[in-house]
């Protein structure tokens, strides 16, 4: 059991002018027992951040505390953590039992206790029948569970997950997601989970830390991140299909976007250049709301439960998500689009930060 605090954590490779900084000062306070998901696109520094917490990467600047203790100079084994790797990193020549027991053996835990702990973990993860097998005799999902079992038997203060689901097929991934949630509920161990998959992030996280290009863009609950994205990056990254982001010129009453002039809701925060965000699921047919935009349909994608309608707006496509039961518009149709003012997001085009 432990809280984690990251204080202005920086990672730089190399020295001097050629140094390549990949994490630019991340600050975060993580409470005891919280499940935190670090999410971002490839190369955003999320894995590096996790590996710094694990002690596998040196911390260039700042401090990491685990359970109130500065761990910057501690070896991974001294940090009271356990990690699940993307490719599981099981020892290929050891049985499942030995894989789980290895860390305990090194820590000189008495054999009887090792056995109890491994058996208990095996029971939780339904690995009982596989204890004598070698990793290569297991399926991907089973290997994944062994990797989790290896983490559990250590009874660590913190679990670290480095994209543990990305080598599983879609069905298994959904199932394992539920298992991880259940496990966290039962054990209540502080967890850091790195993923690039926003569905994993939204479903698993109690709070999520969205990263981009080595910076923390937003740190909040999945609802906050979805409902009030802190920047255009978060707005475009979380939510599928991504939020429509339109750059336009406002004069208080109207917003002109790529030659189109659209009526603005009264709540429009200011004049001048603006980025307006609207999620595809929050736009709909009809004349309710502050203004009706009339757009021409270009492409319609039918997904069964819903349809994605791409409408031409200047030089961009504006995505609208409508119920699959509604009649499908045909390409070329002009449709009236109702926009609810409270669903609009406003961003500063200079800083990309949220205005209102």
């Amino acid at each position, binding site marked *: 059991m432990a809280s984690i605090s990251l204080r202005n954590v920086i990672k730089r490779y190399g020295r001097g002018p050629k140094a390549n900084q990949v994490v630019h000062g991340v600050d975060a306070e993580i409470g005891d027992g919280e499940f935190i998901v670090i999410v971002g696109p490839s190369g955003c520094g999320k894995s590096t951040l996790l590996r710094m917490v*694990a*002690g596998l990467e040196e911390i260039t600047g700042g401090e990491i505390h685990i359970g109130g203790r500065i761990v910057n100079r501690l070896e*991974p*084994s001294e940090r009271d953590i356990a990690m699940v790797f993307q*490719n599981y*990193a099981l*020892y290929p*020549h050891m049985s499942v039992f030995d894989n789980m027991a290895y860390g305990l053996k090194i820590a000189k835990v008495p054999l009887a206790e090792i056995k109890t702990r491994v058996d208990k973990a095996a029971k939780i993860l339904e690995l009982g029948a596989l204890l004598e097998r070698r990793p*290569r005799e297991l399926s991907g999902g089973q290997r994944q569970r062994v990797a989790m079992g290896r983490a559990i038997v250590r009874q660590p203060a913190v679990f670290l997950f480095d994209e543990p689901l990305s080598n599983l097929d879609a069905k298994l991934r959904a199932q394992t997601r539920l298992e991880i949630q259940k496990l966290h509920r039962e054990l209540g161990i502080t967890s850091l989970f790195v993923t690039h998959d926003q569905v994993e992030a939204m479903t698993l996280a109690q709070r999520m830390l969205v990263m981009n290009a080595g910076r923390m863009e937003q740190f909040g609950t999945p609802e906050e991140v979805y409902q009030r994205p802190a920047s255009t990056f978060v707005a475009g990254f979380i939510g599928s299909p991504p939020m429509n982001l339109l750059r336009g010129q406002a004069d208080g009453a109207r917003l002109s976007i790529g030659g189109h002039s659209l009526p603005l809701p009264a709540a429009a925060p200011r004049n001048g250049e603006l980025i307006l965000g609207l999620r595809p699921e929050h736009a709909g047919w009809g004349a309710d709301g502050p203004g009706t935009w009339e757009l021409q349909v270009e492409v319609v994608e039918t997904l069964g439960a819903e349809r994605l309608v791409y409408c031409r707006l200047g030089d961009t496509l504006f995505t609208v998500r409508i119920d699959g039961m509604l009649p499908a518009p045909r390409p070329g149709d002009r449709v009236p689009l109702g926009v609810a003012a409270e669903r609009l997001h406003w961003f500063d085009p200079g800083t990309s930060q949220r205005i209102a």
Partner: protein
Amino acid sequence: MVERNPVLTIVTHVVLAIGIAIVAFPLYITFVASTLTMEQVLEVPMRLLPGDQFWANYSQVLGAGSTRGSAAPVAPMMVNSLIMALVIAVGKIAISIISAFAIVYFRFPLRSFFFWMIFVTLMLPVEVRIIPTFKVVSDLGMLDSYAGLTLPLIASATATFLFRQFFMTVPDELVEAARIDGAGPMRFFIDVLLPLSATSIAALFVIQFIYGWNQYLWPLLITNDESMYTAVIGIKRMIVGGDALTEWHLVMATAMLAMLPPALVVLLMQKWFVKGLVDTEK
């Protein structure tokens, strides 16, 4: 080719049989010669069916040796060869695996320089550096000793390189998992790397055993005492000038004996040997 034509099958088998016959015929002749009397060996043409001197020749060679040239029994030479081959094989593997471990897993100053130094020695086979090596060994008083026979041949760039290549294919996550499990470098080496290298070690053992057993030039230079001869040198010393003087039946018997241990090592370790060359357990 996945063609199933009976004629082709026969043709391929015939070709294979001819190939085997070409390779095996000299071996067969050697065997036949080793079972004949001296007079029968010198007949022209030599007969192609084994004679009745098998036990007589082999026991003479093992126990007493040839009566001409060097008259040392072959049994102790076989022991010498065995010791030399084993020490070289084990020594090479032990030293190269540790060097490769250092080069792959530790960051120390001039790491790549040392690696390239090791690599460059690949270009210097024993024959090239034999005079200076001989001088060193003789100055150290190691002529006619097992140390002199084996030490100069133990350093191996090839094996170091092979282990390095193998270690580089071990996923980094395995190293990291071990670090998180609290395994220090030596613990990791013994618990994880060594078991994973088992098949490579087996393959190298076979290669190096044969290399050590078949050494000719080096033992020839540094052994003068008959009790330090290896089997290969024994053969050489039995051959004296002039065809009629050499006891060819005994030379052939010794040759057969000298062939035996490497063949046994290959046969016994074949499965591991092939595994070590083609796949790795990861």
